[in-house]
């Protein structure tokens, strides 16, 4: 089972080799990503889950181990899918730095999800910071360097807090293994626990794009190319959702029940989530640049997802996982199409993109399907998640009820701007001049295929029901499903 290391080692090797390649880089990158994707799907479909792989034979908690559970392998499948899609929509030639850093990002994202050791997690998280910064800064123009340096400073500051938190954990509990920490969490006194949680949360909230830690998000999305946007959202955002599930709901959980051990901080997180949703949807309403609108929308979705995770009962957790998948699919459609549209019209404003839907109806309709799914309209994948989360939150405390009200209010704002933008694509163009570039068929095909999947899940949620349930069960019974896997026989 040590072969699971391939998911990390082969991309890293590829990253090193890419420094020397020229034209072959793209092919190599696609091959490596395809390999990791197929490999992870094979692991997911095999019967060997859940299993803990001790690297180098050193058993946990002395060594580092990789834990393969349905939840983590499912997320790896999603991350690699986003990676391969992002490779397909690259426009133009990229130099070796792009592919090299991309492969580092791939390795690091896989590592974040696979690892069972918190210091290892810190290292991989730092690696993703580097890789994303480099990818954002790739175009070397004013926008991208500004965005990149600001993100780097913010992320480094935040991860230093994470490191302090890890240090305190080691000092008090004596272990760095996530499963071990989970089983020993009640040995801490509440004040220390709170300190640790606050430090670690600070570290991860920047990556999770929550308000008020997310000042970097619109700039970063705006500055990156379409493929970088897909990577940023599909790989980093999905890894972020996994981090919430693993660190907040497994490591710091009450007796493995999926609820945060400090209820006050859970409420504070819900308040932060509500603020995120509210601020991002309002900010997106009047924004003219399409990429920034999508960036704000991503922020709002992450807020919604963490709201779902923090509620703590089974219904909301299932809903949160549905939302992760639906958000993943729909946002990728939107980013892929946005890249095409911006290249075709040469402008960043969505108001200048009139008439694209008439010329390429499949692209226009796919955009509409993606937007409707994000809005949570029935018949599309996003609806079931929202319904389950709201239903689950109803039985919570007053913070959660306020959260529901805010979600429903912002749903109106979200609906108006998304449909406004979608309809703009179908307006008649006043002048009859052609677009600057042609739309590439494979991008539209990818978008259309994802749109069909979104429709299918929307109409028949049972398609992913089993997988979602497996993930939910794992969180809700994390003692038997996670800790036991790493330390069999402890309980």
């Amino acid at each position, binding site marked *: 089972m040590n072969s699971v290391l391939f998911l990390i080692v082969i991309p890293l090797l590829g990253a090193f080799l890419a420094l020397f390649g020229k034209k072959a880089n793209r092919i190599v990158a696609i091959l490596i990503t395809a390999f990791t994707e197929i490999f992870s799907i094979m692991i997911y479909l095999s019967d060997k889950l859940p299993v803990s792989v001790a690297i180098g034979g050193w058993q946990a908690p002395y060594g580092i181990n990789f834990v393969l559970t349905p939840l983590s392998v499912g997320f790896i499948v999603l991350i690699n899918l986003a990676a391969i899609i992002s490779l397909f929509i690259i*426009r*133009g030639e990229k130099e070796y730095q792009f592919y090299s850093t991309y492969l580092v990002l791939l390795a690091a994202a896989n590592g974040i999800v696979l690892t069972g050791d918190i*210091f290892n997690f810190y*290292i991989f998280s*730092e690696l993703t910071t*580097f890789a994303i*910064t*480099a990818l954002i*800064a790739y*175009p*070397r*123009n*004013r*926008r991208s*360097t*500004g*965005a*990149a*340096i*600001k993100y*780097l*400073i913010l992320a*480094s*500051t935040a991860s*230093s807090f994470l*490191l*302090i938190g*890890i*240090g*305190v954990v*080691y*000092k008090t509990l004596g272990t*760095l293994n996530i499963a071990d920490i989970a089983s020993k969490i009640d040995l801490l006194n509440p004040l220390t626990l709170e300190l640790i949680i606050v430090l670690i949360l600070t570290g991860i909230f920047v990556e999770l794009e929550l308000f008020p830690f997310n000042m970097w998000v619109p*700039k970063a999305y705006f*500055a990156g*190319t*379409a493929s970088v946007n897909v990577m940023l959202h599909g790989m980093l955002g999905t890894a972020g959702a996994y981090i919430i599930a693993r660190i907040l709901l497994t490591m710091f959980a009450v007796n493995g029940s999926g609820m945060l051990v400090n209820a006050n901080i859970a409420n504070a997180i819900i308040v932060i989530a509500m603020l995120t949703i509210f601020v991002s949807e309002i900010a997106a309403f009047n924004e003219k640049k399409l990429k920034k609108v999508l960036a704000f929308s991503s922020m709002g979705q992450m807020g919604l997802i963490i709201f779902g995770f923090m509620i703590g009962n089974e219904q909301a957790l299932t809903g949160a996982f549905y939302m992760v998948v639906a958000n993943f699919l729909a946002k990728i459609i939107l980013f892929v199409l946005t*890249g095409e549209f911006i*290249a075709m019209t040469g402008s*960043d404003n969505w108001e200048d993109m009139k008439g694209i839907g008439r010329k390429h109806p499949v692209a226009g309709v796919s955009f509409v399907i993606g937007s409707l799914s994000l809005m949570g309209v029935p018949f599309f994948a996003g609806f079931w998640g929202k319904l389950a989360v709201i239903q689950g939150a109803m039985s919570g405390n007053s913070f959660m009820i306020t959260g529901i009200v805010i979600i429903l209010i912002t749903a109106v704002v979200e609906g108006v701007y998304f449909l406004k933008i979608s309809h703009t694509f179908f307006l008649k163009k006043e002048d009859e001049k052609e677009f600057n570039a042609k739309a590439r068929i494979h991008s539209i095909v990818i978008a259309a295929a994802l749109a069909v999947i979104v429709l299918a899940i929307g109409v028949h949620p049972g398609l992913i029901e089993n997988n979602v349930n497996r993930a939910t069960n794992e969180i809700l019974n994390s003692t038997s499903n996670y800790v036991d896997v790493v330390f069999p026989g402890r309980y």
Partner: protein
Amino acid sequence: MTMSNIFLISSTSLIFIGLFGVLTRKNIVKILLSLNIIETGINLLLVAFGYKEGGKVPILTSSDSINHLGNMVDPVPQALVLTSIVIGLGTTAFALGLTIRYYKTHGTLNIEANDEEEVTAHE
């Protein structure tokens, strides 16, 4: 004032100095300097976490060192610190490279310079 207390206080003060710097400085190089100070402080903090009063170096020097295991300073934080120093090195190098590029595109090292005055989008 025991040694570990001195370590803890000094490292936390380094961290706070660094945080103050990151918060208030506008020049990118100064911000990166403060970031480095934070990282140094954290490294010191981590080593301090592993410190034991009157402990020995955690290396087995002779055959009976193994009896003094309880008296040794914890080596794990030291390993963590090594990794952290390398990460700090990488961050600083990368950030400085970016700063040079930033100076070329923005003409200034002020972090509050407007990013969007010209649109030179590649793709």
